[in-house]
């Protein structure tokens, strides 16, 4: 660096110069009082910026952002595109089987609320299955027929365009069943 160059001083102050270039600029600064003073002013200002307190979003906004972000991340778990599309039928069958096993492990009266029933994954197929009857049959251990029927319908639906939403519903249903079976 043979002439004064504030851009180079700025890069030096930020540590963005490679070692040989930095050595060259530092050499110039040692020989140039004006650049030495300028570099000092720049470093003072940068040090002042470090004293700025961090700011945080409001607690309410943080909760909202976290909740939305978690949902988006959870969708990735369900919706890894190539894997899901390749194995969609196996995934659907596995999800249904897992749900059925979950039900069978519940050894106490099942009394889901209406709201819980609304969230149950059977909603998409409720047009042909009586959900209330299914819950009773499941509780009594006679689940084979409705589950088979549900599997057929869900798998058929997975062949349609709304694959992602269908799989997400399945996963949410499994979470719900797990929640119930844990006695919460």
């Amino acid at each position, binding site marked *: 660096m043979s002439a004064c160059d504030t851009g180079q001083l700025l890069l030096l102050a930020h540590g963005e110069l490679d070692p040989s270039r930095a050595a060259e600029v530092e050499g110039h600064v040692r020989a140039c009082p004006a650049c030495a003073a300028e570099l000092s002013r720049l470093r003072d200002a940068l040090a002042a910026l470090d004293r700025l307190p961090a*700011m945080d979003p409001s607690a309410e906004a943080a909760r909202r952002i976290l909740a939305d972000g*978690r949902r988006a991340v959870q969708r990735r778990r369900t919706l890894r595109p190539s894997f899901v599309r390749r194995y969609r039928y196996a995934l659907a069958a596995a999800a249904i089987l897992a749900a059925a096993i979950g039900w069978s492990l519940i050894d106490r009266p099942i009394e889901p609320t209406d709201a819980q029933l609304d969230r149950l994954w059977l909603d998409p197929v409720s047009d042909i299955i009586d959900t209330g009857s299914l819950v009773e049959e499941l509780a009594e251990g006679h689940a084979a027929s409705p589950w088979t029927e549900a599997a057929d319908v869900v798998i058929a639906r997975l062949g349609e365009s709304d694959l992602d939403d269908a799989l997400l519903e399945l996963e949410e249903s499994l979470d719900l069943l797990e929640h119930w079976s844990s006695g919460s």
Partner: protein
Amino acid sequence: MPPQADPEHLRDLVDRCRRGDDRAFDAVFHMFRGPLYSYLARTTGDRHLAEDFLQDVFLRMVENLDRYEESGRFQAWLFRIAANRVRDWARRRSHTERVGGAAEPGNPGGTTAVDRPVEQPPEAALVMDEQVRRLEAGLQSLEADERQVLVLRHYSGLSFKEIADIMGAPLGTVLARSHRALIKLRERIGEPAG
């Protein structure tokens, strides 16, 4: 500049986010929300807008995780998303103001909302010492483009060249804005706060 996250830990968190681990997302959120929000709030001058942008940034992060190539520069990648968001907003505002043609009252330069002082919560204002108050005032008194470069460089870990790419400006222009901003800031923090 905020402390850098441990690269190995961060790589693991990003990988887990890709696989759909929402606890890893929580960790990433808590790691970067402060620096990102500080950048967004100090650049836009609007805390509520900054919260909306913060939400956008984290959602875009999740949506684009497959495009992130592991380079040990996740923070820079995240801030690039944030800076692009701010750039788009600033362009829209600029266009709107040109079409509307009116400068804000008391603001004859016709500058944008990024020039408004960042609102501080009362409790923070009470404890903020004189030096920091001067600093905040000095920062908000800068031209919008000067402040944007300064704040982005400070919080993001992006190089000036990367910032120039994001802003679509020559490197020399970005360096000149940053230099002007730092010198003005240095002068203003030496003056009584207005």
